[in-house]
């Protein structure tokens, strides 16, 4: 028997769907999301997408300008560098390393940060206070300094700088999780769980995590943009990715030698990094305002 319908639509979107509806209303945010998807596709499918081998040196075409300039050719879209390597392919491979390693960093930092933060939030007293203060202090040490110390101990390399940046990013997740868990523990729905006899671990996984999810996602977008900037900055200072590996910041620092004759070699890698960070920031901003306004209809 069909149910009685007073209204045409009797459909209540879930909170997550509400976020998506609100997010879609901002066209800019959707464009940012499309860019992130493009960068993700580049990261995954770069061997198929890149027109040339990034290390292939074609000595007949050195320092070819980009295709839109008078002496450029369409076969090398962004021209070639001082060793005759195709810049477009190198940028795609570089974007893969930069974006991929930043994603990994944020993923690890979220896991570790939420884990430790949850423990610190569920515990209380001296232990919690020590954890809090210790990580607060790490948070205020400049990332570059942590990276310099890590590089001094372990040597240069992509993985070592990734480790350093992860170390610098974890504290903010710990802090956020800890304050959130602490605030949530005093709310009524958690009290209800407690009265039902749930253990604190169960409360964390079934009650707190679902409501914390969005906060963490927003925080992760901020962390992702910081991670991209830091990875490429360390690559630029030649502390990060070393030579056979291609990374956007490292491409930038290598093209400094030909800055006079080939300014596009400086402009393009930086533009790639900038677009990546901008897309992440726009999506983060869109997500934040969507979360703020999702129940305002």
């Amino acid at each position, binding site marked *: 028997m069909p149910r009685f319908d007073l209204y045409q639509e009797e459909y209540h979107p879930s909170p997550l769907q509400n976020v998506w509806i609100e997010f879609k209303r901002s066209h800019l945010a959707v464009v940012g999301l499309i860019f992130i998807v493009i960068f993700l596709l580049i990261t995954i499918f770069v061997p198929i997408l890149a027109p040339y081998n990034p290390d292939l040196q074609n000595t007949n075409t050195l320092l070819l300008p980009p295709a839109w300039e008078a002496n450029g050719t369409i076969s090398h879209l962004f021209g070639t560098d001082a060793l005759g390597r195709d810049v477009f392919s190198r940028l795609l491979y570089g974007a893969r390393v930069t974006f991929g390693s930043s994603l990994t960093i944020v993923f690890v930092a979220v896991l570790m940060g939420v884990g430790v933060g949850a423990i610190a939030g569920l515990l209380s007293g001296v232990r919690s206070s020590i954890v809090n203060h210790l990580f607060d202090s790490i948070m205020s*040490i400049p990332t*570059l300094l942590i990276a310099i110390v890590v590089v001094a101990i372990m040597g240069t390399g992509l993985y070592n700088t990734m480790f350093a940046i992860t170390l610098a990013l974890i504290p903010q997740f710990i802090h956020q999780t800890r*304050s959130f868990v602490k605030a949530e523990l005093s709310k009524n729905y958690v009290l209800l769980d407690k009265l039902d006899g749930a253990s604190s671990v169960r409360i964390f996984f079934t009650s707190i995590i679902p409501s914390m999810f969005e906060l963490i996602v927003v925080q992760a977008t901020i962390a992702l943009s910081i991670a991209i900037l830091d990875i490429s*900055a360390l690559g630029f200072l030649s502390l990060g990715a070393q030579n056979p590996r291609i990374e956007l910041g490292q491409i930038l620092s290598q093209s400094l030698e030909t800055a006079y004759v080939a300014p596009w070699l400086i402009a393009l890698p930086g533009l790639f990094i900038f677009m990546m960070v901008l897309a992440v920031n726009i999506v983060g901003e869109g997500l934040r305002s969507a979360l703020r306004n999702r129940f305002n209809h």
Partner: protein
Amino acid sequence: MIKLFIRYINLMVLTIFALLVLSFILPFLFPGDLLTNISGITPETAEQRKVLEQAFMLNENIFAQFQMYIENLLSGNWGVSSSSQISLFEEISSAFPATLELVFYALLVATFVGIPVGFLAGLRHHNLADFSVVTFSIVGYSFPVFWLALVFITLFCLQLEWLPISGRIDLLFEIEHVTGFIFIDIFLSGLEESKAAFKDAVRHAILPTLSISIVTTALFVRFTRRSIMDVMEKGYIVAAKSRGFTQWQIFRKHSFKNALVPILPILALQISTLFTNAMIVETIFSWPGIGNWLIQAIYQQDYPAIRAGMLVVALFVLTLTITIEFITRAIDTTKDETARAAV
């Protein structure tokens, strides 16, 4: 209040102690000879090694070594750089003020541009001006600083040839090093051409300051805008409006200070980003600051220098952050212990 003060002093002492312990352990972790890592001198003979070991008490137990390390630190005897053999204390005291100078200019620009613009955008939100300010701020803090610096160099130094590429001041000016802050030093030097020197120093400072401050300004704009928008929705603002105050009166008496309170702790967090950016930009503009110096130390594997430089920068940033946090808490007594202003 006193309780709060004691808590923060306690926190500061604990963190400083942790940092000291960390910097004490570092030479044990660095690759290479422990003695060279600590002293910066590579002993050539067995006797020299013995003397050095005696001086740094390497044969004693670890606590005696730590005590020795602290005593040396306090007496300004920080060892020598293993690449230049110059006393680290001297090198750092000439390099660190240069970085501070750069950070200070950037903070000045960010405060006097970012906060007013943020207020303007927040008060008249959802119109064209606000939209363009928001766009500028998102674009602004997405710039990689090192790229921004390079773009400025290619544009203003190589193409237009308006501004100098590197350094703090033209080498022709012989400015005596007194405080380390170039403008004060020029003032103190009493040179005849001090006006020309001043002008030259300003020209050198413009590009590095601009490259760092764009990112920080954009962040300040954003935080201020958010904060004033939140404040304007509060009940006491509505009450003031209903009593017939003008927008300006409300802003001056009610919302201005209340909007600044949540911004302060976020600004404290930005200091570490600011230092990172300043240190990166220094290497590009050959600004003789601590960032440039530390990066050179890494390239030359100068471990004593890395240790001392790290300790100084970290101590400074931590002290500054904790002080600002204390001030915030002292101003805003309602604030919960764990709460931190949302972005």
